[in-house]
């Protein structure tokens, strides 16, 4: 197991470096550069000055070399959008997103797996309705679901309509707690729906397996059949994608963050891309790649642990 982990961690690190470097490269090669923010009619002098400030007048290889070198020393360059060092900026945004991601993952897991068990093991109106709701949740773009939730929050006044904090909050923690439900719900809905669909299908399949029928013949109660016999095997379908889901939540959803004005990694990555902010792009992509690969690795480990049939050393 240790060797397996070490090898995979090494590959994760390689992946992060590769992805961040390709993002740096792609931003160099993509049409336009960070001087776009100066507008279409900026003077040549302004443009040249800005380009040299961000090493765009030097060859790609040289810029990459300089960036990689300072990255070793944990200096990830400066952001042209915010004019502050990339490291702390990305770290703070990632932390904000992590708060949402963990909450959303919890909600999605409980709701998705729970509802999936209900729909996978029963017939009737309720499972049918839940199925409709899941399909509805995955059929709508997250921009729209976030806006609908914001609409509800604005019209009912139950929750703050955006941001991560209020200005004159007396208690920092209760204030944060009040701002969480809106973005967490917006993030969790499609993930919960995905989990529900996967869990439902997997459970239904397991209920048809011989070992379940054998247990039923032995007189095991329905409840035990579902929860103790069929479900533990069916959860593998979720485990296979769980790590990926966690990773992609942690790398941030641009749509949710922009609508709820949450200062997170998704929004930062998108803004960086749009503005061709080269060092910020590399930083965001690196963090995104790191959490995604970590998520996938975690998923694989969970899979190996959950199913004793799987030989884990590869």
């Amino acid at each position, binding site marked *: 197991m240790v060797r397996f982990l070490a090898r995979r961690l090494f*590959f994760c690190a390689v*992946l992060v470096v*590769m*992805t961040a470097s*390709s993002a740096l490269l*792609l931003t160099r*090669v*993509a*049409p336009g550069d960070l001087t776009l923010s100066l507008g279409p009619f900026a003077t040549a002098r302004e443009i040249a000055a800005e380009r040299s400030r961000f090493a765009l007048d030097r060859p790609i290889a040289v810029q990459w070399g300089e960036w990689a070198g300072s990255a070793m020393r944990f200096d990830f360059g400066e952001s042209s959008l915010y004019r502050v060092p990339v490291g702390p900026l990305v770290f703070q945004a990632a932390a904000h997103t992590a708060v949402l991601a963990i909450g959303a993952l919890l909600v999605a897991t409980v709701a998705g797996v729970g509802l999936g068990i209900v729909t*996978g*093991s*029963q*017939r009737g109106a309720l499972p049918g309705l839940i199925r*409709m709701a899941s*399909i509805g949740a*995955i*059929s*709508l*773009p997250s*921009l*729209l679901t976030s*806006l609908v939730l*914001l*609409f509800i929050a604005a019209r009912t006044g139950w929750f703050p309509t955006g941001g991560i904090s209020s200005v004159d909050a007396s208690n920092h923690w209760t204030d944060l707690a009040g701002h969480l439900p809106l973005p967490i719900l917006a993030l969790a809905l499609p993930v919960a729906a*995905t989990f529900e*669909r*996967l869990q*439902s*299908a997997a*459970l*239904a*399949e397991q*209920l*048809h397996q011989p070992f*379940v*029928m054998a247990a*039923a013949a032995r007189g095991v109660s*329905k409840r035990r*059949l579902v929860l103790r016999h069929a479900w533990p095997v069916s959860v*593998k*379908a979720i*485990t*296979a*994608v769980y790590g*990926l889901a966690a990773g992609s939540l942690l790398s941030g959803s641009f749509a949710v963050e922009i609508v709820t004005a949450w200062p997170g990694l998704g929004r930062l*990555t*998108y803004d960086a*891309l749009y503005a061709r902010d080269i060092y910020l*792009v590399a930083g965001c*992509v690196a963090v*995104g*790649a790191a959490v*995604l*690969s970590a998520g*996938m690795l975690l998923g694989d480990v969970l*899979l190996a642990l959950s*199913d004793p*049939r*799987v030989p884990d050393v*590869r």
Partner: protein
Amino acid sequence: MRWGGLTLLVLLAVSVMAAPLLAPNAPEQRFGDLLYAPPTPVHLWNDGITAPFIYPLRLVSRIERRFEEDRQHPAPLVWFSNGRLVSGGEAPLLLLGADSYGRDMLARVLYGGRISLTLALVSAGCAVLAGALLGGIAGYAGGWLDGVISRSTEFLLVLPAMYVVLMLRAVLPLALSGGTVFALLTAIFATLGWPIVARGTRAIVIGERQREYVEAARAVGVSPARLLLRHLLPAASGYLATQLTLLLPAFILAEATLSYIGFGFPPETATWGTMLKDAANVLLVADVPWLLAPAVAIFLSVLAVNLLVQATGRPPVQLEG
């Protein structure tokens, strides 16, 4: 339920394929004074007229988006003319209202379905097929082959797709034909979709591979290909079916996202994804809810496929009662 799904899917497919017949108006046709017009009410009888008819909608206030029926000029519906099943004759028949340009929403949903539905079904199908095969091979073969395939899935999943697509758009010529865009989008979606399918399939195949019947079959000399196709992959069929229903809406909506960064069909072309993106103004939609018609279309398509390919929650007979 399976039949329900099949029926629904066939209905949808036939509707979008028969769009030129079913749509009362052309999808690009603009009615300048009917921006955001509500669905035209169809009346059944009035004194003297026994066939279905409509009143033309007249604009009362453009800025308030208010319309009223012109009761002076009832227009009977015209059937089977101009290659259309039904149309309004003198007055435009807008059964699902009009969008921000005054174009018929029903026509745009029907014509848009041809692109969105076909694109999504084809790409999802390719992604599931490729993912199933590669995931199955990785799970069964193990060793370096598994390593290569698994690491590739990780690389593709971690890669920032937007950046690559943006750069791709830049190197392509400015004007792209609809066919080229379709082919490119299918390729991009299939490439982005297969890793997720492969990872899950691999996990399931690894589990199945340990079972006794597999050992037995190998001992007898069954070829790996047959084993894979006949026994191991079918074990993942539930997962594959679910992934198909998950990828379908994802691709319909992703088409709109890519269109946002310039990698899409020409602007007048209706697609469900772009129509929904245009409707992404909740305040507007609260007053003009028919803009969400494509969301209903996407929902119905996904529901149909889901019902069709997925086993229902119906447990075996012995467990009942």
